[in-house]
């Protein structure tokens, strides 16, 4: 006979859930890396108001930010094969994990685009004016003067996005991917004790976010000191 909430189970479930951490980290890694690359491109398109791309970026960002990730995952999982079918490529039996990675990367790209845009815009105009007056080209200015400063400004928001991305991975379980939250849910279904599994994942998230906080603060202090 069990209890409604059994703390001993937390210790029992911990190893199994921890074994799934690599999957979560893999998803977060590709989501952030892929999202950053695409997000920077989107941010630049928005800032410079490039004719067609600006409108497309606005639409994409609006849609991806405005709809639940679940829908986006469904669109990628069911829609992408349909789209590629027209070109004769059949990826219906492609690994589910790839679909998950693509949808999370696209999702994070939209959010990161806004963070990057805000950070770039927060660098004072005097910086780029000074750079141009010294003779740096536009891309040099961007790379050497604006980007490092924007990077420093964006750090906290970027860190928050990484943590959020980690929590968003919860939905991977609907496609059967076993990351840490998925494993917690699977255990909850098997044993009826969902709460204890979630507590384990919360502890993992807390440790991960603390580690990231300190790493970011460390980098900020040592490398980006004013």
């Amino acid at each position, binding site marked *: 006979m069990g209890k409604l909430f059994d703390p001993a189970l937390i210790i029992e479930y911990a190893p199994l859930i921890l074994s799934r951490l690599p999957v979560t980290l893999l998803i977060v890694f590709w989501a952030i890396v892929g999202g950053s690359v695409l997000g920077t491109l989107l941010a630049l398109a928005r800032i410079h108001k490039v004719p067609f791309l600006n409108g497309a970026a606005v639409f994409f960002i609006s849609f991806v930010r405005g709809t639940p990730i679940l829908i986006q995952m469904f669109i990628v999982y*069911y829609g992408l094969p349909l789209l590629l079918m027209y070109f004769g490529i059949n990826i219906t039996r492609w690994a589910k994990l790839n679909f998950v990675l693509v949808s999370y990367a696209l999702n994070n790209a939209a959010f990161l685009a806004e963070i990057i845009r805000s950070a770039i815009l927060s660098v004072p105009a005097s910086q780029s004016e000074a750079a141009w007056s010294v003779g740096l080209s536009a891309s040099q200015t961007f790379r050497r003067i604006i980007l490092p400063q924007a990077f420093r400004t964006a750090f906290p928001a970027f860190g928050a996005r990484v943590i959020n991305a980690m929590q968003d991975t919860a939905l991977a379980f609907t496609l059967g991917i076993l990351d840490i939250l998925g494993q917690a849910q699977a255990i909850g*279904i098997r044993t009826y004790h969902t709460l204890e599994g979630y507590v384990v994942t919360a502890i993992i998230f807390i440790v991960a976010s603390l580690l990231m906080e300190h790493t970011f603060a460390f980098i900020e202090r040592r490398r980006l000191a004013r």
Partner: protein
Amino acid sequence: MKRSFVIGLLIALAFVGTGYAAPREIFVGIGNAFEPYAFIDEKGEPAGYDVAVLKEVDARLPQYEFKFDSVEFTNLLLGVDAGKYDVVSQQFERNPQRAEKYLFAEEGFANYDKHIVVKKGRADIKTIDDLVGKTLSVTNGSASASIAQEYNEKHDKKIAINFDGANQVVYDNIVNDRIDAGVMTRRVWKRTNDAFGNGLDIVEGLYSKSDAYFIYAKKETQLRDDIDAALKEIKKDGTLTKLSLQYTNADWNVE
């Protein structure tokens, strides 16, 4: 050189002659949210009664090879629509609207009769009519929910439908008088009581009666007939009973 070629050719022809053909791969979608029927075990593999029955069927049908994939409930049916799965299972109940969209098996393979469950010691709720004016907890998207909804549409006095969440929350709600009743199969009721502390009573009258069926893509009538035939076989020779007792502690055609 020529002789070994002829011998090789004869062997190949012999194979063809015996009718050896590679088995067709069947993609099976299994739900991941319903213990003990369709869930994920400690090794991360699809497991449960539904899986065991299908593995047994696979063993008896050499022309097919089943590949199991575990996804959430809504993705099972969407997967059938999108051609990702040929057959899916998570204790599906049949009703006319669903049969319109999907191909159901003819043979059921488990009993899915449901009862009302209430807090221990409570005697005022015996039938669905007693639920009028009280709150009932059902799972969003389930057949139990649609039965309650249809009841409300046909009657003036309504049942207050509350859509439940995590198991622990539902149990806590009923045992602490926040919700008046829930709907479960007898086996799930036993498991819930075992897990949380024996606070629920089951009402003997039936809430709904059904069997559980596999669902197929509309065009897979041959696959459906083959699996139905295999199901008939394993029912007759007692294997289904054995599997049912192993996974659900009750015979397949009994509650």
